[in-house]
């Protein structure tokens, strides 16, 4: 299977123009033998939409035509990002796998950064499910959006569901321009090293392919980092895009290679999610019932603890 990443720089708020550009890239990629094209977070609209997210939001229903982007009807398999108008009226930051113009799968971003320069909880609702899905040729795919990847429990939940390919659609602004020399490499942004570490570590820990599409371009004062990666199940970088500029990268991936990479190890085989669940339940109960433990001492928002939601 040939997997590609389009590292695009969307025109902010212009879904039609962005869809047309992605469609053109997808056609070129298919002509080059690409089977699946991944694009970054909110690749159809740009990132800093503010309350325009609600105006651009469109229904994204698995199994139905992708009416929000008819330009992609002939684009083959492509993963795009857009504001989704949910059936509950909530707008979600969604990544959708389109197959010949129909929605095969959608993932609603679970963790919406709302700190520092980020403001996503003002405009989007949180997704509540982490599901894997099957694709042709025996591929089982997990899809995450940007900040989701910083929460290792999500990759774990997908690994438990048997994925062999993790797709991450992201739009992180580049950080650390003034840190010189960078701790790792001579790139534009120190932050690129962090993303690469996460991708390579996740791939190696679970013995899966990781494709991470990071957008390029500028919005306001923020420069998006680029540096998209395709990482093999041994943690090796198979393809790398340049920083901060548009690019198309591709790599061949195979289930046989994935099986071979897992053979010397037993990490995936030995994982025990039932035991993890039992321990997690016990730990949360102990944390919430401990009189000596302040409510903000553990990981997680105290409001989401069992006693607060029951």
């Amino acid at each position, binding site marked *: 299977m040939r997997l590609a990443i389009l590292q695009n720089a969307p025109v902010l708020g212009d879904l039609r123009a962005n869809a047309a550009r992605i469609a053109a890239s997808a056609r070129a990629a298919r002509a080059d033998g690409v089977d699946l094209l991944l694009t970054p977070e909110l690749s159809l609209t740009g990132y800093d939409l503010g309350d325009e997210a609600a105006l651009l939001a469109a229904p994204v229903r698995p199994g139905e035509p992708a009416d929000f982007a008819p330009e992609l009807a002939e684009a083959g398999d492509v993963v795009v990002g857009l504001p989704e108008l949910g059936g509950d009226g909530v707008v979600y930051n969604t990544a959708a796998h389109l197959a010949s113009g129909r929605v095969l799968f959608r993932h609603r971003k679970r963790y919406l950064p709302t700190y*520092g*320069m980020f403001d996503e909880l003002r405009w989007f609702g949180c997704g509540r499910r982490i599901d894997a899905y099957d694709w042709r040729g025996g591929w089982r795919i997990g899809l995450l959006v940007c900040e989701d990847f910083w929460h290792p429990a999500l990759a774990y939940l997908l690994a438990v569901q048997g994925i062999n390919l993790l797709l991450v659609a992201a739009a992180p*602004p*580049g*950080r*650390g*321009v*003034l840190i*010189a020399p960078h701790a790792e490499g*001579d*790139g*534009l942004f120190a932050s690129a090293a962090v993303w690469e570490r996460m991708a390579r570590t996740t791939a190696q820990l679970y013995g899966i392919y990781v494709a991470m599409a990071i957008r390029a*371009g*500028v*919005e*306001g*004062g*923020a*420069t998006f980092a680029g540096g998209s990666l395709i990482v093999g199940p041994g943690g090796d970088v198979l393809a790398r895009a340049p920083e*901060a500029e548009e690019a198309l990268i591709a790599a061949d991936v195979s289930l046989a290679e994935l099986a071979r990479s897992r053979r010397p190890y037993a990490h995936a085989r030995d994982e025990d999610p039932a035991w993890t669940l039992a321990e997690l339940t016990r730990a949360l109960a102990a944390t919430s019932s401990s009189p000596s433990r302040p409510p903000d001492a553990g990981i997680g928002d105290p409001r989401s603890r069992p006693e607060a939601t029951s």
Partner: protein
Amino acid sequence: MTLRERVGRIVVGVARQALADSGADALILLDDGSPEALLARDWCTEAAGPLFLAVGREALGAGEMRAILEARPGWREQAGGPILDLDALAAEGRRLDARLRAAAMAGGALLANPINKTALVLSAAGPPEPLLPLGDLWATDVRELAGGYSLPTTIRALAENVGGIDALDGALRACIDERRALEEALAPLADPARARVQGALVAARFARRRVGLVPKLGPRTPGIDLFA
């Protein structure tokens, strides 16, 4: 890639996008001849190409005016109607400068002010220009990139009173970039100037809430993740 190349690449990208987003037909840098202006001049030229103009902050000389009016014939009328000789143009310098600014603010051009971050966070009256290409570079960063820096007289005096620009920028970095408590960040500074720095930071809060566009370079950038 050198630090100057890295920073330049970000500033050029942001300035180029700002020019496109604003629909402006020119990028004007208020060029006061400072080290900041020299840096910004290079990057604005790269961002805007033939759409870049550098304009002195105080007034225009005859040569500058000739260059501007030859490059932008349509501005002659905005600047005061048909003016036949350049000596007269020079005499009209200040008024023309003001009118150019007004025309730019109305959408004809994008104005850029090369103020550095030290001056920006301590100035109670922030610059009105919509693009601040060096607004995330401390004075000491500019010194590293350009061999010198500039500050308004009052802030330069403040720096001297607290032990120099390195001491002042060190305290501001601790307070703003590293998010340390104000008292802790300013503790290394000499009294009584420390209280004056604290007073200046507080007095500048109002201005910091409405700064122009600053290319993000550091961990906390005015207008992006530094709001007060």
